[in-house]
């Protein structure tokens, strides 16, 4: 019996005995008529799950995991806030078998929901606890040029046409160099990005290459085995073919003898 048949059989058996699955039936039958209670139960369970996740995120030591989980919690909160107006509408609807007090209780529950949703912690909110987080600390020391930026007009310095021309030329050349350096820096940024991406891509391919290596080794040894077996069979064949050649030659010989016999007769 193949795996497929087993799977089909298991599915059929499960379907047959589904009606005895207590949990499933309870889920389907409970709150059958009451839309509000159903939706409220779903929202409640989502809030519980979000709380559990946020607690786990707070205890998690791996920050990347914590960041991802906090984002999930925020997403869930957003979705829950969308559900609240729906619930409000359902709470105001009168359903059969509900007293006025029940309706009032439901409306209170719905009002309390937004606060409960917002109370779910979802990440570090205090920015003050990170000293230097906001300060744009540049890791590179300032590159200073040895250009005199102090007061140019002093009593001991007099302009001459040549010197001011020099100064202008110097400023122009400096500007052009700055532009050129900007272009170079942009090019270097692109190169750095490309290099980092290539690095990651190669890292990604290493395990794939290892897999290819092992698979090719296996195929290699299988082919070698097959070759050996083929060689053995061929040598056997040849020896049996030698045998056939012997028989044919004998038949030819007999034929020649018969012909001689007939000729001499």
């Amino acid at each position, binding site marked *: 019996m193949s795996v497929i048949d087993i799977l089909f059989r298991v599915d059929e058996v499960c379907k047959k005995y589904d009606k005895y699955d207590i949990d499933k039936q309870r889920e389907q039958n409970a709150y059958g008529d009451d839309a509000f209670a159903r939706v409220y139960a779903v929202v409640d369970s989502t809030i519980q799950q979000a709380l559990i996740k946020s607690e786990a995120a707070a205890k998690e030591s791996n920050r990347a995991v914590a960041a991802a989980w906090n984002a999930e919690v925020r997403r869930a909160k957003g979705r829950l806030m969308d559900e609240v107006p729906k619930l409000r509408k359902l709470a105001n609807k009168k359903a059969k078998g509900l007293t006025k007090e029940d309706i009032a209780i439901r409306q209170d529950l719905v009002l309390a929901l937004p606060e409960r949703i917002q109370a779910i912690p979802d990440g570090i909110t205090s920015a003050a606890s990170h000293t230097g987080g906001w300060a744009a600390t540049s890791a590179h020391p300032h590159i200073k040029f040895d250009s005199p930026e102090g007061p140019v007009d002093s009593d001991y310095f007099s302009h001459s046409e040549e010197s001011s021309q020099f100064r202008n030329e110097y400023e122009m050349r400096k500007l052009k160099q700055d532009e050129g350096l900007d272009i170079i820096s942009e090019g270097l*940024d692109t190169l750095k990005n490309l290099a980092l991406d290539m690095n990651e891509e190669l890292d990604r391919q290493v395990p794939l290459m290892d897999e290819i290596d092992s698979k090719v080794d296996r195929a290699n040894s299988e082919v070698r085995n097959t070759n050996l077996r083929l060689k053995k069979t061929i040598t056997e064949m040849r020896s049996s073919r030698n045998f056939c050649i012997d028989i044919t030659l004998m038949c030819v010989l007999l034929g020649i003898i018969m012909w001689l016999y007939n000729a001499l007769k």
Partner: protein
Amino acid sequence: MASSSSDPQNLITKADNLTTLSFTRWNADWINATVLYEQAANAFKIAKDYERAKSAYEKASKGQEMLSSPWEAAKNMESAGAMSKELRNWREVGDFYRRASELYIECGRSQAASDALAKGARALEDSQPEEAIKLYTDACTILEEDGGEQMTFDLYRAAASVYIKQEKYTDAASFLLKLGLAADKCNATNSQTKAYLSAIIVYLYAQDFKQAEKCYNDCSQIDGFLRNDHGRCASKLLTAFKDGDIEEIKRITQSSIISNLDHVIIRLARKLPMGDVNALKANSDTIKDEEEPLDENDLT
């Protein structure tokens, strides 16, 4: 013989005859039938008769299943999915690719399974984005269970771009953070920091400044991000937003760091700042004012 064997409809009828049980035939001959089904399907595909090619591939796949070769069955299912994509029968596309990935999992090839789901998701991106997202998430789960997180980057990125197209920004940002998590496991710091920066930009585009700040605070716990180019760019961007400095924001978004991100994110970044930056600035100021009176009254 040549004409009848090359006529695909004849092949299908012959194969059907081989497989249907009747009074004279007690065992279905799946081996020959599958061969005939595959030939017919290829012929239909060349003739661009997608409807019949699709059903031929389906039958061929079932035949391979009967022969207990799930790999071939999965390949045929994928071909059937490609045919139904041509026919624009979107529900079937999803079904076929899911079935193909299940068969691949039976073979124990998780990479191929997630590839099949990714192909299906790409086909459904425009017509059924919800279904596409589900397929992408399932593909990522399959890979992560088997320890192949490196392949999940592209899938997460594609899923995030589908969400952005649908304008569901919180969901897109959470997917980008999942990308960061997967990158962290593989020590791919560049992709990780890019993912965090993209998430912050998405939050800012959705005009959710508090979320962006929270996200930045979360991610700055990670050393790599704090000292990286991307981290510095993110902090500059957030300070510019807080100060309401539009020129600075425009300057940052034109910088080369942002241009190295995913093109969908670049488009969002160039459109920043969305909405009223001064309103965001006013919001953050009022929050500071609310905190101070509390401090005064706090006698402990």
